[in-house]
């Protein structure tokens, strides 16, 4: 066990699984130089060009490569540099890899991990900053994984590479520098199991990606004011562990859902709808949603800061539904 950042946790997960299983290979743009975010650092040198394909800029080619290679028995890990670029190759993701098993009556298995980088905060503007996880949650056949800590990143990625389903694995850009305890050896974290990041009794905050970090910061701050906040990170967005969320809301009677993606039609809306279906009688207040306003991600640092939801929005949402002196 040692302190590692999120980036290092990702590299370690891929590297160790490639050592363990020679059917695993990596392909993506600029992976030869370690990837633009360093999440592939050293893999080309370690495994060589046969197992680490530094591809052309060719997103449909990369995703199709994964579909065909997986159908033929390999276990591709592919990287789409920015989540925004997944718009370029949606057919291979949505119509091919997600559906092949079902369309073929169950015969095809496609053990694919598509890793990608999401999120704002680097002044990279509208085409390099989005959080599009809800698109993929809407597609039966895909699993969507979105860790918020280095520990979860390594364990979930190891499990994802071993899973025989196609998986969208989302690495939030602001999380890449976050540090935490990460075991040196391999370990798995099961998919579809949420994690209670902090226990509390007054309100449940269900947060994803970087907003888990924000929610924990707010929880710490409000604890000093006598408000006890429970923070849940679903970690896997599809399949979604609603049982853990419902159990928590039955205890706290209040819920805030927090995501970096635009609020409208986001994952938070799905979670809120499921809470009211299953725990309506337990609720003492409306479920609040925290997310981004309905605009493309702006470039200007001032505008971007105004766009990205964070601690202020989470705090405001909690304060709206938790009575003073709760």
């Amino acid at each position, binding site marked *: 066990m040692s302190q590692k950042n999120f980036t290092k946790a990702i590299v370690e997960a891929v590297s160790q699984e490639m050592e363990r299983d020679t059917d695993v290979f990596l392909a993506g743009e600029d992976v030869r130089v370690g990837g633009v975010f360093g999440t592939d650092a050293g893999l080309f040198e370690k495994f060589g060009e046969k197992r680490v394909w530094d591809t052309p800029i060719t997103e449909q080619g990369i995703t199709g*490569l994964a579909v*065909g290679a997986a*159908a*033929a028995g390999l*276990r591709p890990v592919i990287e789409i540099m920015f989540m925004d670029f997944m718009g370029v190759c949606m057919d291979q993701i949505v119509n091919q890899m997600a559906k092949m*098993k079902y369309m073929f*009556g169950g015969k*095809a*298995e496609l053990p694919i991990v598509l890793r990608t980088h999401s999120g704002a905060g680097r002044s990279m503007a509208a085409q390099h900053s989005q959080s599009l996880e809800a698109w993929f949650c809407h597609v039966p056949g895909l699993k969507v994984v979105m860790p918020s800590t280095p520990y979860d990143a390594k364990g979930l990625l190891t499990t994802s590479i071993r899973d*025989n389903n196609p998986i969208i694995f989302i690495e939030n850009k602001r999380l890449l520098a976050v540090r935490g305890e990460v075991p040196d050896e391999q370990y798995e974290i099961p998919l579809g199991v949420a994690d209670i990041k902090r226990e509390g009794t007054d309100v449940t905050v269900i947060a994803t990606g970087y907003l888990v970090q924000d929610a924990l910061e707010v929880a710490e701050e409000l604890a000093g004011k006598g408000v006890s906040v429970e923070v849940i990170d679903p970690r896997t967005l599809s399949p979604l562990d609603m049982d853990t969320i419902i159990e928590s809301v039955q205890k706290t009677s209040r819920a805030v859902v927090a995501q970096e993606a635009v609020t409208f039609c986001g994952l938070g809306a799905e979670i809120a709808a499921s809470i009211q279906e299953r725990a309506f009688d337990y609720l003492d207040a409306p479920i609040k949603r925290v997310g981004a306003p309905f605009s493309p991600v702006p470039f200007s640092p001032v505008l971007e800061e105004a766009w990205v939801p964070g601690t202020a929005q989470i705090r405001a949402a909690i304060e709206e539904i938790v009575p003073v002196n709760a």
Partner: protein
Amino acid sequence: MPADLSNDELIGILERMILIREFEERAATLMEQNRIPGAVHLYVGEEAVGVGVCSNLTDSDYITSTHRGHGHLLAKGGDPKRMYAELLGRSDGYCKGKGGSMHVADLDIGMLGANGIVGAGPPIAMGAAFASQYRDDGNVSVVFFGDGASNQGTFHEAANMASLYKLPLILCCENNLYGEFTRQADHQAVKDVADRAGGYNMPGIVVDGMDVMAVREAAGEAIARARRGEGPTLLECKTYRFYDHVGRDFGILKRDEEEVAHWKSRDPIPAFQTILVDQNIITDGDAEALTEKVRARIDEAVEFAEASPEPDPSVLLEDVYTEASA
């Protein structure tokens, strides 16, 4: 006649083309009688391409197909019983009734599926070819696609990647002169799709797609080259769709009668039959008996399909995901 083929093998090639023809004629009738739900895209007229190419392949080689995929599956060795059952949406179909005409597949014989998306096949076949190179197993992949699909970016991305890595891939363009309902001259800037090979530093071969032996020979050279590790070939087969884009006559496209008559006069089945008769390999009587034998097989297959049970609604959610992992 090629010296490598016995008389039985030559007769087998004729029989396979007749099987596709009879299968498609019956499928068209079943669709017109509303016994097949949805749509079928008929391969009638193009039989020499699929049969000529696949006569060079084994069960461990891969092919990807198109929306017009029945002929490819039959050419690869598919079972007409399970195909009709699938076309009828029955539980004994190749896909248990979940795929239908546009998604028939048989992974056990390397057929990675018909495909409802024009142009989806090339990157998938490229991925399967990558798997063969990765494992050094000597297998090749053939992607069948049309003139229309060669306008999609996926074709170009797969061609570039295959050439870069010298993958064992054969890009087999079935140029039937129409992209759905649009004439080739109205949808692409080249007359010979094979010209596009130059952009990817690979051989581009044009062959008469109505001559099964010519297709077999040209594909055989490309496949041998691929097996030797010398990379991909773009093989363009000039052919013709005797019927409409969907069914026999969808009713929105009026083709030039002389054009249709010209191509029908070049029907690949009687042409090859004549050659076999002229060379005293079969008699006309043998050919008639062969056709009767195929028709009996088709009757039996349709009977099997119609006797197959409808899928039980309880299977709706099966095959979306697998529980398996590495």
